[in-house]
């Protein structure tokens, strides 16, 4: 199966390990990975901040980069959601809306793709310890990918997945919110990290580099002993 990888700008610039793990994992599962070098940011930071015209330019570029793909897979629930939003955002330009719809239809967040399309649940991964999961807002509320990460993590050898109090609460990232409303964002991530610490988990696992960057940033600042991992890294660990 041919998979076109949409890495996301955060993975490209800050979390290349997540990209590498995604590639290796999908290859192990029998996928052939294609990576269009023309890909840039999906436009979400601009879009969410109200710069819709600017975002549309990025979106159109991304559509031309990805429209030939068979499957588009991304290790980010939020960026997958953005691709799914493209047709709605471009609704006033029917041609583009149509092309955006075709792109949206074949876009999958990584764990969704593995469970729904590849129909795999036990990937033979091993990680020893206790983990709790950050279920990102866009991934769960907007994309609707709620169960897939748990389905996959429950099959990881040696890993005990434990509940996280107030797991449905936002971590306070929110893209530019994290700097625009830095003080509020700080309180939100602090509360999130407190719940993570209270869970006594060794690992905090998530499927969105934005949230993870935020949570890890606070964990590192507090010198908390929790290790933050992207789910691709966990599923690719032996």
């Amino acid at each position, binding site marked *: 199966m041919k998979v076109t990888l949409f890495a996301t700008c955060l993975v490209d*610039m800050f979390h290349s390990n997540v990209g590498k793990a995604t590639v290796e994992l999908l290859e192990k599962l029998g996928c052939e990975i294609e990576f269009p070098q023309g890909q840039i940011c999906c436009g979400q930071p601009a879009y969410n901040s109200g710069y819709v015209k600017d975002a549309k330019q990025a979106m159109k570029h991304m559509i031309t980069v990805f429209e030939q793909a068979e499957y588009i897979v991304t290790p980010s629930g939020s960026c997958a959601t953005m691709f799914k939003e493209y047709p709605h955002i471009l609704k006033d330009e029917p041609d583009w809306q149509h092309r955006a719809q075709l792109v949206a239809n074949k876009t999958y967040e990584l764990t969704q793709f593995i469970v729904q399309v590849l129909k795999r649940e036990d990937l033979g991964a091993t990680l020893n310890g206790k983990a709790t999961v950050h279920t990102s807002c866009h991934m769960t509320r907007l994309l609707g990918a709620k169960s897939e990460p748990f389905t996959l993590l429950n099959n990881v050898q040696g890993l005990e997945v434990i509940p996280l109090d107030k797991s449905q609460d936002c971590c306070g990232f929110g893209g530019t*919110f994290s700097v625009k409303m830095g003080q509020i964002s700080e309180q939100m991530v602090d509360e999130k990290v407190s719940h993570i610490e209270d869970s006594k988990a060794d690992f905090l696992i998530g499927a969105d580099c934005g949230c993870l960057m935020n949570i890890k940033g606070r964990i590192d600042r507090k010198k908390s002993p929790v290790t933050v991992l992207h789910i691709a890294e966990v599923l690719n660990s032996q």
Partner: protein
Amino acid sequence: MSIKIGEGPFHQRVEKGLNNPFMRGAVSSAQERFQQRKASAIEELGNWEEWRSLGEEIRQHTIEHLDFYLNQLSENIIKRGGHVFFAATAEEANHYIRDVVQSKNGKKVVKSKSMVTEEISLNACLEEAGCEVIETDLGEYILQVDDHDPPSHIVTPALHKNKEQIRDVFKAKLGYTKSEMPEELALHARELLRKEFLSADIGITGCNFAVAESGSISLVTNEGNARLVTALPKTQITVMGMERIVPTFEELDILVSLLTRSAVGQKLTSYVTALTGPRTEGEVDGPEEFHLVIVDNGRSSILGTDFQSVLQCIRCAACINVCPVYRHVGGHSYGSIYPGPIGAVLTPLLEGYEDHKELPYASTLCAACSEACPVKIPLHDLLHKHRQVIVEREGKAPVSEKLIMKAFGFGISSPALYQMGSKFAPMAMKPFVGENQSISKGPGPLKSWTDSREFPAPDQERFRDWMKSRAKGGRIDENRYRS
């Protein structure tokens, strides 16, 4: 007072909120309580998503045919001997009500809870005209007694106060001598309020929903105070936002079911009252005279815009009760009597962006509000829509932000610019990177992040470059997951 409350710019108000541990404790525990109660109430009801869809459908239909239903409502009220006044502005509403009160030589007014009267600053207008105005909803009463502290929540206005603070207010203002037990506090207020009900000339209520087919006004309460406000004084004035209307009792049933569960997690409140006009011959109670004041005050200008769905709101505060931003900053930070996600959407629509341009940004767009809304208002979409208006129509976005959007290549179609920006990021950030490969003191806008968090150093090799070299047969570092 108008919609706007509090002093100082947004960030100052937020700072004040964040530094108020009593308020934050009270809000946090209230949110938790509301969420738990709501969860069990909707589970008991079953098919919640279908109920929400029905609620949405009813509200959309009503708003689309608002002129028809308002006309029907008005005709039915007049038929029953009531008076109806359409107020285009807050001023028109206040002046009409003041004139009615004065024509009755009214000196004392008792009120049940009403956000729209807060919105139009009715109390101030009546007090200026020499009337004594007494709030009889316990939450509103506490705030009024506490030197007109503004509401911080649309259903439980004194949410920001804990019981010890309320005890202290009562001690200082009402000669209260007992403990902080809610029962004792409530009893004291009840004893004082009972005298006010008995001696009031005019009763003023809000309106949860008006029923067009019968000309009825429905009030959803727990304390019973609205019953006394409408039963004892000879003149009743009801003030409603022009969108608070349902076609028939059948829709009222559904919306009240959604409202009580969403607001306070109750199957039903202690009282759901429907009042139809003044007392007629043969009836034993009810006011001699009844006036309905229908307030527009900016609502009709929302009709037909991208924001129309905000008029679906039934003021249940479910969005406020789940909002993590609200939890930390509290209601007063919003600088509006309508706080939380619904307030951040509604306030700029009613009062303009000038004083409220930060509100749409006081959200991570996490969509908890949209998910909680019993009538499916896409609140996070509307917050986003406001941002678009602020940036693209109002031109109110800060220059620094515009530069960031461009400089980081976000939202720019040029792959070349993105390539260049991302390639040189490691070099540009190098002076700020510490030993642990992260940035502890970021420059410019990053400072706000690094005040409380580490920011990752850009990878030396971008993922795309790794892919490129891998395609050429490059190897992978086997140990990279072990940190």
